[in-house]
């Protein structure tokens, strides 16, 4: 049978994720060969823990970016919720962790709502709005901590051990990340409002004409991003036990990096959670591998940046090829159709 545009599209779509997958495999093989004790359970557990928080943030970031927006305030939200979580626990040792998670997520939702309203009601471009709230939220954290920090010894054991737990050999935090990623993917695939994210990002005006409540959808995306950042904050507190005013600084960069490397179009409309998650894993793996190869901080920085550029280049080339193929395919089909039309 002939290659129909749909199969072509799906092929190219797989190509996207495939691209990251290949990159990942190459990286793994390389490190495996060069660095002993890379291919060890312990090491992969570390990678998993490292990636967990960023992955959770990346899921939220994906939703926002799909709607042709961006959320640069997640790092600050993580900091705030991380501190509030641990501070609360420090003062109420008996508090069930579920409640603390709830608290963190609720705060995250609140802050996400602020971002969302600034963008939708206030009509402030997301990148600006969230640069502003990035500063404001971080500032608030400074005010709250007032130069103090919460220390491990103030926290209940069960909380301190949370991050260390490894059900079925996988770190607890990684399990959370996986759950979130699956949920996120499901939403983007099955939830009608999740699909709308793609429509909104692909062509906002058309979305409006189609009767999609654009404002509400964008708001939802930001709220989700905030909520997940809140969860990320809790995870951060669990992982690093002691939290101060600079906790989570620059995490937004890691999240955006993961999303970009994951092949999510920064102009919205296309991309998947799977891609973003893979992106996060790729970054974490490379970081880890470089550490094992005893490369300096600076080489890591350098390669990280280069990796982003390479990733988007590949992605761009793939999509260009695809479009060209599609157009020609289309034309051939038109020709065929006309020939038949003419014959009759």
């Amino acid at each position, binding site marked *: 049978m002939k290659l129909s545009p749909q199969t072509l599209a799906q092929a190219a779509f797989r190509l996207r994720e495939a691209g990251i997958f290949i990159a990942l495999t190459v990286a793994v093989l390389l490190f495996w060969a060069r660095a002993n*004790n890379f291919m060890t359970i*312990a*090491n992969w557990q*570390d990678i998993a823990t*490292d990636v967990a928080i960023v992955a959770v943030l990346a899921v939220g970031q994906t939703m926002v970016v799909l709607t042709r927006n961006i959320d640069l305030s997640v790092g600050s939200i993580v900091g705030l919720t991380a501190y509030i979580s641990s501070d609360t626990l420090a003062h109420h040792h008996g508090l069930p962790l579920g409640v603390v998670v709830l608290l963190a997520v609720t705060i995250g939702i609140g802050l996400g709502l602020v971002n969302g309203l600034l963008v939708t009601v206030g009509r402030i471009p997301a990148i600006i709005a969230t640069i502003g709230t990035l500063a404001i939220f*971080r*500032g608030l954290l*400074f005010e709250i*901590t*007032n*130069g*103090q*920090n919460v*220390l*491990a*010894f103030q926290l209940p054991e069960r909380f*301190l051990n949370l*991050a*260390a737990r490894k059900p079925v050999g996988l770190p607890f935090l990684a399990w959370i990340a996986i759950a979130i990623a699956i949920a996120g993917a499901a939403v983007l695939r099955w939830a009608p409002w999740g699909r709308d994210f793609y429509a909104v990002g692909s062509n906002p005006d058309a979305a409006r004409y189609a009767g999609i409540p654009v404002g509400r959808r964008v708001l939802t995306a930001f709220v989700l991003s905030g909520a997940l950042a809140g969860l990320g904050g809790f995870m*951060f507190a669990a*992982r*690093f*036990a*002691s*939290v*101060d*005013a*600079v*906790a*989570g*600084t620059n995490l937004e960069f890691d999240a955006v990096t993961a999303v970009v490397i994951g092949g999510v179009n920064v102009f919205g409309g296309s991309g998947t959670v799977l891609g973003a998650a893979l992106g996060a894993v790729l970054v974490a793996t490379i970081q*880890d591998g470089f*550490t*094992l190869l*005893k490369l300096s*901080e600076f080489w890591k920085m350098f390669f990280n940046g280069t990796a982003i550029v390479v990733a988007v280049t590949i992605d761009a080339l793939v999509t260009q090829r695809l479009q060209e193929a599609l157009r020609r395919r289309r034309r051939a089909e038109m020709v065929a159709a006309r020939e038949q039309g003419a014959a009759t």
Partner: protein
Amino acid sequence: GSAKSDRTAGPAAKQATYKIFLIPKFIGIPVFTLNGKGGKEAGKKLGDTVTYNGPTEASAAKQVPFIDTAVRQGYNAIVISANDPNAVAPALKRAQDRGLKVVSYDADAAKDARTVYVSPPDTQSIGAGLVEWVGSQVGYKGQIAILSATTTAANQNAWIAVIKKTLKKPKYKGLKLAKIAYGNDNDTKSAQETQALLQAYPNLKGIIAPTSVGLPAAARVLQQAKKCGSIALTGLATPNSMRAYTKKGCGKKFGLWNEVDFGYLAVYVAHAVLDGKLTGKAGESLVAGRLGRRTIGKNSTMPMGPPLVFTPKNIDKYHF
């Protein structure tokens, strides 16, 4: 304008009460908050006004505006922990030209940009101490690593230099320095760097973390990795931040000068400099309130004095 600051810094300087501006590397973390606390305490004792303020990131460029405005506000002295010894120097010199006195503490500024540097317990004794503390725990042999702050932090680099020197001594030749990792005074980073060390050096015996952010982070990672037994940890941090771990045997021996006293001393020095009692010459000394007499060593540097050493036994005597 200049006339104005001249007035305040000139004749006014002879009056008993001074305005002193205390600028940490960045505000927000406890260590510096404690310096501020000590500084204010000293200020109260001396009848000086002490202001504690600074940027929110460890950036020299963001420290400079604080220096300049301190000058304009007619402060008599600046006490600073420099993010970049050179980048703050021009601003500090401007201040000196306007008659202000400059005292650096914790992280030194360029020599010609300050009168006295109040160093953490002198580099030599700290460096040597760190090596001894880790060495005594591992029986003086095995692979060790350093978890530092930033590649460019003056004090860190000074200690590292001494540590390297000390390791050459026959007593410590069993110890091999495998790697120097950098945690950027950032809890997250420090923990990750520690983890990296554990991966990269499976038979690592000891870690020296001379940073108040890095040490507890390292302790925590070791604990989570259940490596407290196999890897000896030492460094510099507040007893509060280490108590939990030390008691569990993570970081059985570490040290620190009292951060409150540190700020306290720095302000006393600044006051003395303003009074003209200290000019930075070696051998000059002052009585720094409850800390007693302290003396200036070479490079017009006044050490904090030997660090306190914390162990599971004595740690509960200290609360800061």
